[in-house]
């Protein structure tokens, strides 16, 4: 049986891991390579690096961090942030990323997703979607770290991305990100039930029960979290145990 995934996300800036509340007040939480090794050993099912300032800073530091991480952690690694062209994807894959996530560039030019999937295969193309609720049961896609509205319906967008070649949707609620109030379950479920590809729920995890809800109620097949793991609030093992107790198939339980 397929196991549900726990994916710690490392927000990376200048080669260092940071994580903020609603994308401000960044707090330094360590070296990405060391963290990746810790998470690998702790039983994380995948890792995600999000380069939050990639669009206007030197990428070489990121490629180096990816390279060193891939050499020391034998679990899948997704890298995103500032991915704008096929060459960015090629470099990340060559540095050792297993999957690359595309966000703003997909909104600016949806065909980029199709080209990327044709070039590298759908299995390594993740489309990251940042969404905010605009009315009950309706969510809109935002870009630029949640600052820019697009007028695009999030559910329809995710469906279109899957058709164009997204192998996976990384779905973040901008309303919940950094709040610790839990995933936006309505959003997660609306998207997960609308697309044929796996959906990773993101944004808002504050407790272990939130992780359970993302899978059980949101129908995601993976849950992404940052702060609760980085600052030691909970361990990956505790998260897995709670999810398994809730009847969710998990890997690496004794």
């Amino acid at each position, binding site marked *: *049986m397929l*196991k549900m995934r726990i994916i710690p996300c490392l927000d990376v800036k200048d080669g260092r891991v940071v994580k903020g509340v609603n994308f401000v007040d960044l707090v330094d939480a360590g070296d990405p390579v060391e963290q990746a090794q810790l998470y690998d050993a702790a039983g994380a*099912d995948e890792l995600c690096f999000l380069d939050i300032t990639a669009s206007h800073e030197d990428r070489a530091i990121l490629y180096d961090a990816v390279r060193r991480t891939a050499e020391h952690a*034998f679990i*899948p690694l997704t890298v995103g942030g500032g991915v704008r062209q096929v060459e960015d994807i090629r470099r990340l894959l060559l540095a050792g990323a297993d999957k690359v996530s595309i966000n703003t560039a997909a909104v600016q030019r949806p065909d980029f997703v199709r080209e990327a999937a044709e070039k590298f295969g759908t*299995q390594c193309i993740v489309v990251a979607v940042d969404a905010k609720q605009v009315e009950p049961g309706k969510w809109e896609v935002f870009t630029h770290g949640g600052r820019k509205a697009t007028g695009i319906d999030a559910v329809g967008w995710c469906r279109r991305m899957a058709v164009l070649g997204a*192998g996976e949707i990384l779905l973040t609620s901008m309303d919940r990100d950094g709040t610790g109030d839990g995933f936006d379950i309505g959003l997660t479920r609306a998207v997960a039930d609308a697309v044929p*590809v796996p959906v990773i729920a993101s944004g808002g995890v504050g407790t272990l029960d939130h992780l359970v809800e993302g899978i059980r109620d949101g*129908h995601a097949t993976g849950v992404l979290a940052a702060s609760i793991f980085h600052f030691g609030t909970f361990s990956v093992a505790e998260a897995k145990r709670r999810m398994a107790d809730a009847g969710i198939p998990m*890997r690496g339980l004794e």
Partner: protein
Amino acid sequence: MPAPPTVAIVDYGSGNLRSAAKAFERAAREAGRAVTVEVTGEPERVRRAERVVLPGVGAFGDCRAGLAALPGMTATLEEVAIGAGRPFLGICVGMQLMASVGREHGDHPGFGWIPGEVTALSPADPMLKVPHMGWNDLTVLDAGHPVLAGLADGADVYFVHSYRMVPADPAHILATADYGGPVPAVVGRDNLIGTQFHPEKSQAAGLRLISNFLEWRP
């Protein structure tokens, strides 16, 4: 003193092979085996290797075309795997290429080493997403196979694929994973073995399989 034996990981432009190479190096080190791991696109180096690994990500036809773009490589693989009978490991699409035909985006001929076809995953349950992505546990059918030693039933390994290999002879299926029914996870015969999952991304279970492959004397 003779040079240590070489494992050739075939590089034909299909994704990153650095982490795969690192996984083989680490597995060799943990097994206490002196092995040189070489990532190469040169047929001559593949011909000299003691054992050969064919990775592969993306579409079947693209991988086939990528191999064909390396002059002499396809013939060399046939020479070492079928002619010389050296240990050969295909990973993901590298495994699928051993089939007779791949039916992803039209029909493409495979090597035909393990008769069968590669067809789309289509689990009946709509809750089961495609790609089949994530960790799934193995049901080992050929528990005596040296490459599967120590991978007791229930070992979780990492899959990411939308197509599956269906060998014509069920005896060529060495292990399965359940995803809306049994999906071939390990196939093989004689000196050939293939994994649908990614041993280089499968932590301890994957490293064990790699180290078994490095010791394998088919």
